[in-house]
């Protein structure tokens, strides 16, 4: 790899977000000029309306119909942060990036046309306080919520693209207004030096991409037909991967979790200390047939061998279908002498008595559990709901109180480790 792939990441920690006259950060408070943000979003005539709202951790606030979430980031100097969507096509992962931590730009909307079948945006809920707040990473950050209204005359696919670009554009815009602020932290992401005495660890990063509403984009392009591919960790966190996945609220990795993938950040923090971060292998999950699943998994195991991996951490994105792809990759890596740990959600039924995994292989002897998709979480009545009055679940009133399966929680079963949960035996 002859690219430099040395990325200087400047972090400005945001402690509060308020609406004000001009957009910018002063003493850790991000002020948003809501009208400016609105006019930026409404440049796209596929969006006919916008309300800008703020939800802070601890508030009696519920956000519904959540779609994508983006951490505000921009490139310093030349370059674009989301190539394929904003600016020119280029390779990201080097140069300097400015990020605002502790805040997300969260889009919320219904779609203009009715859906059927798999490929639809299902309910996705975030509670900012109470019991349910343990089940979303977005309960722990301040959300700048863009509640969008579609132009009623356009198709869902077109609107999906408009939503995605709105979130990315606002994220880039906000971060740009913070240029010049003194960063709270500056970290150089560089894995070019490897310690021969430490094990080489690769991250097998499986993503869902089955069609509109269930897509992940790599440099602006859906990965439907991707064979597993090697990518530098810096590229992933620097905007190469963008989410368009709205089908299963609990599993999906919004763009924010690609930018802040906890596995990648953990491996970065340990590079050179107790391991060498050897690279990331992106795998498209949800392959359709057994042969395609085996093809993809064998390919991933082969790539892990090419880059000299001693060990691999594997994460899926999705339920049973995704589990098969990941478990097969685990099996083929182990058979090739590469040790693995797999991260999995559990589905042991609402009472928790069922066997918790959809699919296993005997080689999967080191499984990290992120909790369950089946548990029913009590939601209190809240003071305020952002995004709508009615859940896309049996017409339930969004204000509460109600009981809701984890399944409908935005990133509630985040398989990249967005929450600090573990399935335990009682």
């Amino acid at each position: 790899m002859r690219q430099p792939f040395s990325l200087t990441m400047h972090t400005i920690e945001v402690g509060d977000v308020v609406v004000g006259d001009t957009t910018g950060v002063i003493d850790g408070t991000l002020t948003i000029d809501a009208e400016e943000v609105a006019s930026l979003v409404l440049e796209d005539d596929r969006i006919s309306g916008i309300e800008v709202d703020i939800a802070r951790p601890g508030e009696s606030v519920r956000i519904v119909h959540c779609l994508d979430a983006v951490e505000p980031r921009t490139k310093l100097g030349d370059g674009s942060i989301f190539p394929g969507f904003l600016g020119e096509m280029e390779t990201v992962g080097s140069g300097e990036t400015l990020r605002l931590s502790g805040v997300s730009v969260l889009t919320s909307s219904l779609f203009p046309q009715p859906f059927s079948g798999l490929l639809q945006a299902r309910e996705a809920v975030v509670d900012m306080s109470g019991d349910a707040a343990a089940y979303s990473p977005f309960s722990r950050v301040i959300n700048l919520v863009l509640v969008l209204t579609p132009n009623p005359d356009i198709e869902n696919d077109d609107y999906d693209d408009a939503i995605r670009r709105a979130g990315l554009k606002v994220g880039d815009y906000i971060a740009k207004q913070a240029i010049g602020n003194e960063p709270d932290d500056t970290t150089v992401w560089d894995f070019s030096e490897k310690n021969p005495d430490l094990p080489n660890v690769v991250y097998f990063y499986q993503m869902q991409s089955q069609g509109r509403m269930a897509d992940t984009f790599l440099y602006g392009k859906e990965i439907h037909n991707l064979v597993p591919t090697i990518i530098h960790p810096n590229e992933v966190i620097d905007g190469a991967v963008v989410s368009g996945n709205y089908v299963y609220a609990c599993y999906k990795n919004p763009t924010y979790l690609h930018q802040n993938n906890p596995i990648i950040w953990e491996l970065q923090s340990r590079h050179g200390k107790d391991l060498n971060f050897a690279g990331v292998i992106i795998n498209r999950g949800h392959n359709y047939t057994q042969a395609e699943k085996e093809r993809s998994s064998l390919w991933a195991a082969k790539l892990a061998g090419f880059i000299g991996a001693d060990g691999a951490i594997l994460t899926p994105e999705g339920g049973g279908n995704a589990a098969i792809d990941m478990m097969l990759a685990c099996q083929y890596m182990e058979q090739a002498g590469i040790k693995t740990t797999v991260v999995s959600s559990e589905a042991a039924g609402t009472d928790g008595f069922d066997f918790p995994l959809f699919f296993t292989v005997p080689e999967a002897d080191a499984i990290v559990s992120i909790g369950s998709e089946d548990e029913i979480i009590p939601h209190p009545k809240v003071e305020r709901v952002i995004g709508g009055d009615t859940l896309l679940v049996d017409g339930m009133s969004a204000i509460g109180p109600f009981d809701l399966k984890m399944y409908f929680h935005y990133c509630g079963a985040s398989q990249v480790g967005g929450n600090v949960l573990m399935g335990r035996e009682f």
Partner: protein
Amino acid sequence: MVRIAHYINQFFAGIGGEDKADAPFEIREGAVGPGRAIEMELGNDGEIVQTLVCGDNSFHADPDANIAAVIAAVAESKPDLLIAGPAFNAGRYGLACAAVATAVTEQLGIPAVTGLFPEAPAVDVYQSRTVMVPTGDSAGTMKDAIEAVVKVGLRLAGGDALRPAVEDGRIPMGYRRACVTDVPVARRATDMLLAKLGGDSFQSEVTLPELAEPIPPAAAVVALSQATIALVTEGGLVPEDNPDRIESSSATKWARYPISQLEKNENPRFKSIHAGYDSQWVDADPDRMVPLDALSALAADGVIGNVHEYFYATSGTGTTVSHAERMGDEIAKQLISDGVHAVLVTST
């Protein structure tokens, strides 16, 4: 101070051994036998207000009546906790302890705990319903057993919820729950991998099950030209208003619909409510999911006898194993009783 009711058998009550196993149910005030050791362990934290005694044979001669007697006694004394045994590896005594503890918890809402050897017969029977702490296989381990029973019992009597089995020091009840932890997922995954790479011990957070027993295939259909063939699908094909409210994922329900309705496909029209595949092509032509057209043609040609008058549907995505097994069992029984000879199952 926690008020405790204690259940023991004739042996531990000092009535006698096997020859006195028909001793009838009785209530004694205060602590008896191992109850005194329990009180020592409790110190100032609790006391045994009553001891319920029943001979092992007597209990099992009429368990319902004896459980009713226990419930009546405990309902009157209103303790904060019931301790049964510990019963170690005893068969009948262990079953009685577990039955009593279960009934008191389920019928009166009073926490109850018993102590059993993990391989005791009562464990299998009552594990999912009863709080049990593991003990040695004989009364020689009484001291440790009482310590463990009291520790968990006092916590429950104080209104605490159960903690994970390993933290409570309990025999697992067999269910799993998501818990907030101190250590992030990514750190646990990395630590576990490095332990594995270094040849150190590590604990998987989910242990793999024993393989399910394979189900032998049914015998081949002898006379296909005489056979009634049914169509079954997990593809979620239902009348468009989904009258049986079959869930789009994690289904717990199945239903059957007249094949004559599917053939017409109007009033009602059929569509898929399955949440795990792109169903637009099935909605446009349900034969793509439930191949009634092809099967009807085979019937018309005499290759098969006839198409069964109902097709069966559920949605198979995120369904738990136990619901899948139950639904399969229910559908199979219905098919057999309707005289169906073979089934064509289409999946997604």
